[in-house]
């Protein structure tokens, strides 16, 4: 027995020595562990940009293409950023494209009745927030996996828009030139699309919320280990409900941006955004298993996804190549994330 005991102690001490060695250069290793994925995704962006610039220098060395990017990428980036929080919390939301449309329907109807742009905008955001809140409540109260629950609400709200409108779109031309229009989708300094500024604002807000606020701390904890979080007194249910609500709010906002940009409300608003928004989140290194993910990663991911479509045409390929390259880049990047993550453990 005493021999055995001595052996046991010996074994743990060599094991801990080995661990200390494995943690050699701790500061560097820690830096790599903390920022490795973010550096990786920035490299991917630079590589793609480099290839496009070589393939179509005229296009990619002039400013117009960047103005175009800054006008279109925000429509899904303002959703991808808060959606990152949902994924970090270990959940999924597929209903945001429909929330865009439902929120915008509220906007249109309130504007038709009251003529107030501001009131329309506020109620539109409130509707998005409420629908998101409902998503959260359904997920938390019923225990249905959020992937399934939000497939349901995605159909429901799209259906509601179609039923209420009878499929008829609405013109937003009267809103053109208003203060809200200029603030949301005008061109600042004659060049920078306002929606790009708003995307940066949303990115900063989400970053602060995730990294410097108790709410964000709980988002990470709940996604990492929900049982632990509950045992230590984190209100996991409230945290989850709130991340869904924030995505709902953001989706309504994105719906306003996308509709005002074209001065038209289409009942199909949001269709086509689902996959690229999700792709941007996962490209950015947010783990589908929850607990990890960064705002910077998603931000860069949005630009990769957004750059590909125009880039492909610019370098002389047909638009048919778009999806193939989307797929390739997503598979490569997500594999890279998985491998980097395993290396860092």
């Amino acid at each position, binding site marked *: 027995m005493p021999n055995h005991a001595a052996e046991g102690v010996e074994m743990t001490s060599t094991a801990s020595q080995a661990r200390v060695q494995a*943690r*050699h250069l701790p500061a560097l290793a820690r830096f790599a562990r903390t920022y490795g994925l973010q550096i990786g995704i920035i490299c991917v962006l630079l590589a793609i940009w480099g290839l496009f610039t070589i393939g179509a220098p005229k296009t990619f060395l002039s400013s117009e293409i960047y103005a175009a990017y800054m006008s279109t990428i925000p429509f899904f980036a303002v959703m991808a950023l808060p959606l990152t929080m949902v994924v970090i919390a270990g959940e999924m939301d597929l209903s945001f494209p429909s929330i865009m449309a439902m929120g915008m329907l509220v906007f249109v109807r309130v504007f038709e009745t009251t003529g107030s742009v501001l009131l329309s905008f506020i109620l539109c955001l409130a509707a998005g927030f409420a629908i998101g809140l409902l998503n959260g409540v359904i997920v938390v109260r019923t225990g249905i996996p959020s992937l399934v629950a939000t497939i349901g609400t995605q159909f429901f709200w799209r259906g509601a828009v179609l039923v209420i409108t009878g499929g008829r779109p609405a013109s937003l031309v009267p809103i053109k030139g208003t203060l809200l229009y200029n603030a949301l989708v005008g061109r600042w300094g004659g060049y920078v699309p306002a929606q790009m500024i708003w995307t940066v604002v949303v990115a900063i807000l989400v970053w602060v919320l995730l990294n410097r606020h108790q709410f964000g701390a709980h988002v990470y904890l709940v996604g990492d280990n929900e049982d632990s979080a509950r045992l230590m007194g984190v209100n996991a249910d409230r945290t989850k409900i709130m991340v869904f609500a924030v995505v709902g709010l953001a989706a309504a906002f994105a719906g306003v941006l996308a509709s005002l940009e074209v001065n038209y409300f289409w009942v199909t608003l949001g269709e086509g955004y689902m996959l690229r928004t999700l792709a941007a989140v996962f490209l950015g290194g947010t783990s589908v298993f929850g607990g990890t993910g960064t705002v910077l990663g998603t931000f860069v991911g949005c630009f990769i996804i957004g750059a590909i479509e125009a880039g492909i045409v610019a370098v002389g390929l047909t638009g048919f190549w778009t999806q193939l390259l989307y797929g390739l880049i997503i598979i490569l990047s997500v594999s890279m994330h998985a491998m980097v993550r395993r290396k860092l453990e």
Partner: protein
Amino acid sequence: MDYMLEMRNISKRFGEVQALRDVNFVVAPQEVVGLVGDNGAGKSTLIKIVTGYYQQDSGEVYFKGQKLEDLSVAKARQLGIETVYQERALADQQTLWRNIFMGRELTTRNGFLDVRKMKRETEKLMVGSMGFTSAAVAPDSVVRTFSGGEKQGVAIVRALYFDAELIILDEPTMGLSLSETRKLLDFVGGIKEAGKSCIFIDHNVFHVYSVADRVVVLDRGMVAGEFLTKDIALDQLMDKMYRVAQTGHLD
């Protein structure tokens, strides 16, 4: 007599399973109470009621003479009840400082995190209480890279940091090396000296006997008996526990 903790006629049922039946359980100030019993005896359920994780179906809980209603984990921790769980209750992919302050983050106004203060406190705890001397461990280290003993150290230091008056240790020696176990048992003695109370749950009767003032034996959701460790020899206690597990009776 004023108890630190008093539980009266606690019953709890999970579906078909009656986990606890009319359990009476007290902890005096500065007392270490060992809670023993076979798997499924209801030990974890009982303490998870104290910590606010479960709500009892019937019965009352008093903490320092005050009746606890609608207890939640957050509320229990605020009152001064901290727990080191069997499952450690850590978030593996998060940093050390985020784990230490899990659920009780230090905030400035409006819920904004006081990150600098939490890192500074973590640094202090690492040197002072956890005994982490390795240069590789920092407040920003991810907990996943820690050994079992180090993780347990994190869970214990977390319970101590908030100056709890009642510390609950649920199977704390599980997965620890011999020297780590020794350290843990010394630590339990320290809790008592600091004037705090402790509930100590362990499968290993040797461990419980060596630190507890009193041992409560749970069996199939009921209290089968309790003994002051000064009045009973270790082999007698083991004998009784064995008999309880077999027959449901102490003698």
